[in-house]
């Protein structure tokens, strides 16, 4: 391109800034809407996918209300294509002292991991990580306590109930904090989740199995491949676990029975232990009594010992004192003794001399006596000899005599012996003869011997005896004379001896006295020695006494201490006993009560075991698992944006292309003379076209790039901001999407360049000369309307003018209509969808569902529990209530064949039922009667299944039993699926007797907080199995509404901007193209306003037309979106509210009015003369 031409282009650009900017804006809006809407859904999905990938979100989750035992686990593990499977625990609890329910999960290691957003995962049993939505209310390091209800077995599953918060996490299983799912504790709605180490759980069964599959790895969970494959796995798994409920129940019953038996045993043992404790207390009591006694006696013994020891000590002391006294006396006596001894010694010396003289005298006399004595002695000896010989003769006589006597005696003895032998019988003749012979011999001997003896006596013995006696009498006379002499001698001797004796005695006395003196001396010495000894001893004694005293006192003290210790010990024991007894007494009642309660418990447990129902197993996809509402809502939001992306950008581009074409056409027209000059100067067509192309390219490229940039950033961020209220996992990741970027570029640039090229090309085909002349004015011509005379004639002139002008500038007319229509359609649709969604909660809970909660009862209720329930049902907070039969059913439906949960209600009173749920046809608003046979199903369900009254529906109960029902009517319903039938239909369809098992409750105060609190008080009751409130649904809808509101606000702004740009641009073109005409009428005397109106009337009319057409398109769009977009259990209200028509109208009219002011100002400044002068 030539340099001058560049300059020309730039100057054109400068002088037509408004036009440049408007093309830029149009293209920018178009690419923003396109890119923004196209990118947001995928961005959301990609962010979610990344997140799911990071946390290894499980593909399927298997749950059982009785947990998964080993058989279950084996069955689950046996499913084909498994990549990994992980079993985990979970337990729903409430935060202590609140109704905030929390699901405590064991920290998974492989699948559905918790992603830490703050802090770290728990390392000990005392640590916990909370769901990040609690980040505001708790901090890391805080302590949190939970209250746990016993589960099926009545036993707590958690070992710990107080934890330290170690961090905060998000989980792919519980994406949305708005709706975490249902629970059986607290208010019935799960408020959050938490994770702890698996070791915190004390459970024999796992509660959840998480599975992931080989063939779904790396496949987008939003793809149909994924859905199809998962469905296959789900079906396979469902088939596998079909028999598990019965198996599990059998096993469980056996286990529980064992537990109960064990429990009974334990109770018996506990009672025994209790009794033993009681006995041991009694024993302790007697032992104490004994101890008291022992102590008393010990005390007595001690007292005695103490007294005795004291006495002994006193005695010893006295003894010592005595000893001292004695010692003193001894010393005195010693002194006296010493003096006496000295006097005695003097006396003895005198007497010794006297004795010596007397001795000499005595010795003379003695010699004399000794001679006399010797003569006497000789005479005596002679006499004695004579007497001795006589006596000897006498003795010999006697001896002979004695020998005779002996012989005689022997003979007699022998004869006697023979005689006695003969007398013996049995003797032989020979023997007798021998014996008689011997006797005869002896009898001959005896008289001879006797004669000999008689001879001896008379002749020898007696004469001799007389002679001897005479001799002896002579000797005796001689002896008497001798004895006389002897006597005299003896007397002399006696005198001598007496003298001698006196001497000896004197000497003896002296010796004695000497001896006694010596003795005294000795004694004195001894005494002296003794005294010193005694002194020594006394000293020792004193020493030993003090020692003893110390010892005794020590000993006593020791004993006393011992005694005191013993007393103290006893007292302690007594206290201990008292305490134990007290404690025992205090507890015994409660313990006994506990025993009683335990017994009741055990009985209850037995009852429960006997009443155990088949467990319910569920195989859940990510879209079905508990807490998956968030997953679904997230997807809904993404698909809402997607479906918007299908339609909205189309309008934008269409309009943008048209408007930029018009704008460029006008530009080319305005540059006509210039182009002609250039051409005349010899520039080639290519050069001249290039100028326009550069202009268009610059505007559209800039616009596209801006739009693409904003679309990639602003839109996803706005949408993210909208839904982030309920979603706290990683923020949306912005991805540059090349495909859509290129499309946006091509479309944007194409929108500006293609029309430019075509227009410029056509223009330049003309010869330069022609080009230099002004373009021939558009010819006026008859219009269609004119041919309809009656109508045409009736039109006022002004209207005719408008009509003509409209048809004269057809391109612009279409442009305006399309532009406005596009904006309006977007607005109507946006607002309509917004209203459809936001209205459903009102419609649903304002007019259709008027109960506030369903209170489901447990299967087996004691009278007391029933009584409590009735009291709560009669509570002042309850406005009214009615009993119904309630059962959750399901059916597979929808694009993804998800399980659709259906609430079956069979009223106890058909007439009253309408006060709780309004059954009516949506179109006709006519109430539906329950008195006809068949079931009434909710509209969305009918839509999903494609059924209508008269058709049939097959539903499944929790145990996979199928029932086919005939539909009698379809009722208006926006949230959730419902089946309502009368009792008769129920009996025939389900082959079961009718009994109510739930209550629909309407409250006086229906505020969210009150519903929650009342719900919580119901949940506390034993008779209540669960409470279903509407609040969760409302929350869920609100999240979608909020997200959609944001998107719609953006779209509304964009649509408004689009309207502004289009109208401004078109009006501008209109004005500049018709400036001569406007000048003319100005000259004709049209007031400024009239001039403006002259041209603006068209714009207004076209706008109105655009608005009306926009209504149509918008409504179609809205209908399309509300049919495509809603989650499967939600029906958006199809009606389009008045406001969604009014607001777009107001927006467009406001834009028009503002633009009118702008145009008015511009027209005021138009120099009519200048315009009139030139030839066009």
């Amino acid at each position, binding site marked *: 391109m030539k340099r001058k031409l560049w300059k020309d282009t730039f100057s054109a650009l400068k002088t037509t800034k408004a036009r440049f900017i408007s093309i830029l804006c149009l293209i920018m809006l178009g690419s923003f809407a396109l890119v923004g809407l196209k990118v947001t859904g995928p961005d959301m999905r990609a962010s979610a996918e990344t997140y799911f990938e990071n946390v290894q979100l499980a593909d399927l989750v298997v749950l059982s209300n009785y947990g998964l035992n080993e058989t279950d686990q084996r069955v689950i593990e046996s499913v084909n294509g498994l990549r990994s499977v992980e079993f985990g625990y979970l337990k729903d609890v409430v935060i202590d002292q609140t109704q905030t329910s929390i699901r405590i999960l064991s920290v998974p290691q492989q699948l559905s991991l918790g992603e830490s957003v703050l802090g770290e995962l728990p390392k000990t049993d005392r640590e916990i990580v909370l769901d990040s939505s609690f980040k505001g209310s708790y901090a890391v390091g805080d302590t949190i306590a939970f209250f746990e209800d016993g589960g099926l077995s009545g036993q707590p599953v958690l070992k710990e109930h107080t934890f330290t918060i170690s961090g905060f996490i998000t989980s792919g299983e519980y994406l949305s904090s708005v709706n975490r799912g249902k629970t059986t504790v607290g208010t019935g709605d799960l408020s959050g989740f938490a994770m702890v180490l698996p070791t915190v759980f004390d459970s024999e069964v796992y509660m959840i199995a998480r599975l992931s599959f080989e063939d779904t790895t790396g496949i987008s969970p939003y793809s149909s491949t994924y859905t199809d494959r998962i469905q296959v796995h789900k079906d396979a798994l469902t088939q596998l676990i079909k028999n598990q409920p019965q198996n599990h129940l059998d096993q469980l019953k056996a286990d529980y029975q064992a537990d109960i038996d064990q429990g009974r045993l334990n109770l018996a043992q506990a009672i025994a232990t209790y009794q033993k404790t009681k006995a041991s207390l009694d024993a302790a009591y007697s032992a104490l009594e004994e101890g008291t006694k022992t102590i008393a006696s010990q005390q007595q013994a001690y007292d005695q010992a103490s007294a005795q020891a004291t006495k002994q000590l006193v005695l010893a002391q006295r003894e010592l004192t005595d000893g001292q006294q004695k010692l003193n006396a001894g010393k005195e006596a010693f002194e006296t003794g010493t003096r006496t001894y000295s006097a005695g010694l003097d006396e003895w010396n005198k007497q010794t001399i006297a004795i010596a003289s007397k001795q000499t005298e005595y010795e003379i006399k003695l010699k004399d006596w000794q001679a006399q004595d010797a003569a006497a002695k000789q005479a005596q000896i002679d006499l004695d000899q004579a007497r001795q010989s006589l006596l000897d003769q006498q003795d010999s006589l006697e001896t002979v005599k004695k020998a005779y006597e002996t012989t005689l005696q022997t003979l007699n003895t022998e004869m006697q012996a023979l005689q006695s032998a003969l007398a013996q019988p049995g003797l032989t003749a020979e023997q007798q003869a021998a014996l008689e012979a011997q006797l005869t011999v002896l009898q001959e001997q005896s008289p001879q011997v006797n004669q000999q003896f008689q001879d001896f006596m008379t002749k020898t013995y007696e004469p001799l005896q007389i002679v001897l006696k005479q001799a002896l009498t002579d000797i005796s006379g001689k002896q008497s004379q001798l004895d006389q002499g002897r006597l005299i001698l003896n007397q002399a001797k006696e005198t001598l001896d007496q003298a001698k004796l006196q001497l000896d005695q004197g000497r003896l006395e002296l010796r004695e006295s000497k001896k006694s003196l010596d003795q005294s001396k000795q004694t004195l010495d001894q005494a002296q020695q003794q005294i010193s000894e005694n002194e020594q001893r006394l000293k020792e004694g004193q020493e030993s006494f003090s020692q003893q005293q110390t010892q005794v006192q020590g000993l006593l003290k020791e004993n006393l201490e011992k005694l005191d210790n013993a007393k103290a010990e006893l007292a302690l024991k007594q206290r201990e006993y008292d305490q134990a007894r007290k404690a025992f007494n205090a507890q015994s009642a409660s313990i006994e009560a506990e025993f009683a309660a335990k017994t009741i418990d055990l009985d209850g447990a037995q009852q429960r075991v006997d009443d155990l129902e088949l467990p319910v197993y569920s195989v859940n996809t990510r879209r079905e698992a508990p807490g998956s509402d968030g997953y679904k809502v997230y997807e809904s939001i993404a698909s809402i944006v997607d479906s918007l992306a299908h339609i909205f950008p189309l309008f934008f581009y269409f309009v943008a292309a048209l408007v930029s074409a018009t704008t460029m056409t006008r530009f080319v027209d305005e540059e006509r003379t210039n182009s002609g000059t250039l051409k005349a100067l010899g520039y080639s067509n290519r050069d001249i076209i290039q100028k326009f192309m550069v202009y268009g390219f610059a505007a559209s490229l800039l616009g596209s790039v801006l739009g693409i940039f904003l679309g990639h950033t602003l839109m996803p961020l706005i949408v993210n901001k909208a839904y982030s209220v309920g979603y706290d996992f990683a923020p949306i990741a912005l991805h540059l999407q090349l495909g859509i970027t290129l499309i946006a570029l091509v479309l944007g640039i194409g929108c500006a360049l293609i029309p430019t090229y075509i227009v410029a090309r056509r223009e330049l085909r003309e010869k330069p000369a022609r080009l230099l002349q002004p373009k021939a*004015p*558009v*010819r*006026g*011509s*008859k219009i269609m309307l004119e041919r309809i005379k009656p109508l045409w004639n009736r039109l006022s*002139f*002004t209207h*005719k*003018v408008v009509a*003509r*002008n409209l048809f*004269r500038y057809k391109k612009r007319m279409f442009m305006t209509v399309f532009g406005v229509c596009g904006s309006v359609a977007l607005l109507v649709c946006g607002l309509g969808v917004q209203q459809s969604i936001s209205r459903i909660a009102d419609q649903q809970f304002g007019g259709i569902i008027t109960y506030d909660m369903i209170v489901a009862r447990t299967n087996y209720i004691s009278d007391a529990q029933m009584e409590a329930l009735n009291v709560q049902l009669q509570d002042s907070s309850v406005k009214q209530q009615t009993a119904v039969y309630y059962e959750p059913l399901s059916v597979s439906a929808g694009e993804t064949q998800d399980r659709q949960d259906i609430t079956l209600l069979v009223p106890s009173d058909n007439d009253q039922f309408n006060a709780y749920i309004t059954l009516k046809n949506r179109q006709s608003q006519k109430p539906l009667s329950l008195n006809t046979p068949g079931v009434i199903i909710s509209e969305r369900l009918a839509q999903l299944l494609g059924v209508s009254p008269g058709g049939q529906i097959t539903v499944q109960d929790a145990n996979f039993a199928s029932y086919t029902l005939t539909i009698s009517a379809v009722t208006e319903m926006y949230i959730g699926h419902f089946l309502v039938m009368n009792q008769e239909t129920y009996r025939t369809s389900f082959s079961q007797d009718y009994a109510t098992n739930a209550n629909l409750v309407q409250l006086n105060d229906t505020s969210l907080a009150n519903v929650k609190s009342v719900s919580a008080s119901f949940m506390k009751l034993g008779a209540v199995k669960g409470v279903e409130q509407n609040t969760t649904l409302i929350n869920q809808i609100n999240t979608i509404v909020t997200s959609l509101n944001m998107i719609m606000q953006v779209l509304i702004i964009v649509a408004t901007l689009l309207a502004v740009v289009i109208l401004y641009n078109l009006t501008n073109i209109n004005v500049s193209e018709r400036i*001569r*005409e406007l*000048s*003319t*009428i*100005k*000259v*004709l*005397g*049209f*007031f*400024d306003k*009239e001039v403006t109106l002259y041209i603006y009337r068209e714009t207004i009319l076209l706008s109105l037309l655009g608005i009306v057409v926009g209504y149509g398109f918008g409504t179609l769009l809205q209908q399309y979106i509300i049919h495509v977009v809603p989650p499967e259990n939600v029906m958006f209200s199809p009606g389009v509210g008045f406001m969604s028509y009014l607001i777009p109208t107001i927006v467009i009219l406001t834009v028009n009015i503002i633009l009118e002011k702008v145009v008015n100002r511009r027209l005021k400044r138009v120099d*009519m*003369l200048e315009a*009139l002068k030139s*030839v066009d």
Partner: protein
Amino acid sequence: MSYIEVIHEYKRYGSNETEILANNDVNFTIEKGELAIILGASGAGKSTILNILGGMDTCSEGIVRVDGHEISGYSSEQLTAYRRNDVGFVFQFYNLITSLSAKENVELAVEIVKDALDPKTVLEEVGLGQRLDNFPAQLSGGEQQRVAIARAVAKNPKILLCDEPTGALDYKTGKQVLQILQDMSRLKQSTVVIVTHNSAIAPIADRVITMHDARVKSIERNAHPKQIADLEW
């Protein structure tokens, strides 16, 4: 008092140093029912006079009075109203609205005036009775100019101002157009002011005001204006 009075009127363009005087102390009067021609070469200031008389422009100084109203003191609003009710314009290039038929072009002007004439009658009077529904593109220059005149006339204005009405027309059609304008003055007692550089048509006027170099050079009263048919140029 004359019907139109222009007294010491000045029109200046631009600022002090580059000031251009378009009208320099212009004084003249035109009586009611007169056909006046303002004659002058290009740049003599005649169009400026016409614009000021027509309420399309205002003078810088002096008094312009029409039918006793001092339009020189009018606000733009008043001027518009003045244009609307009291003035009919005929332009050199007709300035018809191409999208409207002949009749509608007339009606466009009539629409905003209180006691306007019937467009159809007016068009018939200018000899376009058969071409009512024709669009400007379907009409010849003369016919278009006649439509333009009809449009101006139909408003029943106090004064009819024509800027080179024959400028773009051939001799014959030019005459036709002049005839109509003269008739307007003669028969309907309209005050007609024609601006032209063509002195050949001056004789048909009751009054000829000649402009030269932003000033009025001469004002001639023509007691016996020529018949159009006698006119030659």
